[in-house]
């Protein structure tokens, strides 16, 4: 079990949410014991972390949002409860009596139906989560493709593979799109590389074509567009590698201008 001196180096990362699960659980457990020292330090760290919000580029919210927020607040104001008339109380008592004499078997059947509905709801929520994720991914791609200042590149292969289209926006990220790519072995993956003008290639993520050969890959490269000399794609072992192990299959130079 860790004590305060062992944990104090992790307060900032904890407040940032950057700790991996095991370390985070350790601090959660320590704070749950209401350690006054660590609780105060974590509060302090949370304040410091909150100030990183000032790094966000300033953006003006649309005027309509103000009206929406204020109208929503008006709508959520709790109204004064109306007085309940005598007949209302009598009706409530009657309902309670009826419920009390409702058969146990019927209650059991209702419980089964509720359980099934909950399971169905869980499935629907999962399906919606997947669809929402796809929708967000497409919206991100659309943002990159249509962004001002986005540069496009066509990665070509030496043989007859289809070309791969890349769109790179300095702040929104890099999107890769292709169709009819050849299948890849189960234990392999394609890996995108940004080759800088100086230094070793830097990974920009791994991807596999789907059953139809389509690819839509999004990444926020660590390398800057201005420092890049080439985009390249290699075939690597599953999970990717820190550096390319084979020559590229697709490549495109990153030249000056648009």
């Amino acid at each position, binding site marked *: 079990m860790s004590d305060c001196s062992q944990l104090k180096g992790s307060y900032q990362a904890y407040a940032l949410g950057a700790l991996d699960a095991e370390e985070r659980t350790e601090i959660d457990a320590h704070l749950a014991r209401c350690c006054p020292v660590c609780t105060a330090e974590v509060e302090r760290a*949370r304040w410091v972390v*909150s100030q990183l919000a000032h*790094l*966000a580029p300033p953006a003006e919210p649309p005027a309509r949002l103000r009206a929406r927020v204020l109208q929503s*607040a008006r709508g959520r104001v709790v109204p004064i409860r109306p007085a309940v008339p005598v007949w209302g109380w009598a009706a409530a008592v009657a309902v309670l009596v009826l419920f009390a004499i409702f058969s146990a078997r019927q209650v059991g059947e209702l419980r089964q139906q509720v359980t099934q509905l909950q399971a169905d709801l869980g499935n629907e929520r999962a399906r919606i989560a997947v669809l929402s994720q796809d929708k967000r991914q497409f919206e991100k791609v659309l*943002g990159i493709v249509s962004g001002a200042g986005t540069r496009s590149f066509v990665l070509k292969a030496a043989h007859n593979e289809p070309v791969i289209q890349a769109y790179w926006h300095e702040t929104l990220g890099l999107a890769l799109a292709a169709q009819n790519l050849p299948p890849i072995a189960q234990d392999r993956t394609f890996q995108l590389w940004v080759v800088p003008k100086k230094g070793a290639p830097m990974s920009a993520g791994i991807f596999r074509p789907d059953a139809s050969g389509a690819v839509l890959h999004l990444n926020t490269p660590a390398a800057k567009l201005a420092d890049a000399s080439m985009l390249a794609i290699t075939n690597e072992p599953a999970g990717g590698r820190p550096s390319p192990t084979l020559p590229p299959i697709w490549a495109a130079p990153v030249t000056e201008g648009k």
Partner: protein
Amino acid sequence: MLTLLTAFVGGADGERPSDVALMQGLARKNQGALETLYDRYSRPVYSLALRITRQPAAAEEIVQDVFLQLWRTADRFEVSRGHLEPWLFTLARNRALDQLRMKTEKQRRREDAIEGMPIASPPQNFEAGLDARRQGEKVRGVMALLPELQRKAIELAFFDGMTHSEIAQAMQQPLGTVKSWIRSGLLRLREALEAT
């Protein structure tokens, strides 16, 4: 009219009302207090949400969610313990990262409980609102002095919600290096913010 309103919510002699006074007004369901707080904080909250989600529609939803949460819980906000701006930033960031990760309702309820914890007050010489611009300049100044990769690591953690391991993988850097960058970078920021 504006003078009467600010006097009603606790501002004296037409001065800018404090966040504490506005939160007290909010607890009494005073719409004018909400309007003032919205005008004071909607821009930085929206900017943060937009930077994280990169989607204006999602950012608008988050702003609405944050201010409605403020409206609903104003009577429970520990104004004596924490200032409003950090609370707003933390809530907005959590909501935005929730959108990125499509968290379950259960996970959100757990984090709402954490959000209920008071966030520490800033240093004694800090006055909310009046020093917000200087605070922002100080933060940007400190971060600009950090090496690029260190700054990138902190931004990936804050704006993309990445963990140490995820950052190390994304940046192709050793895990220990990433941990050290984040720890030392935030300590430098804290020292700068706490300096008079």
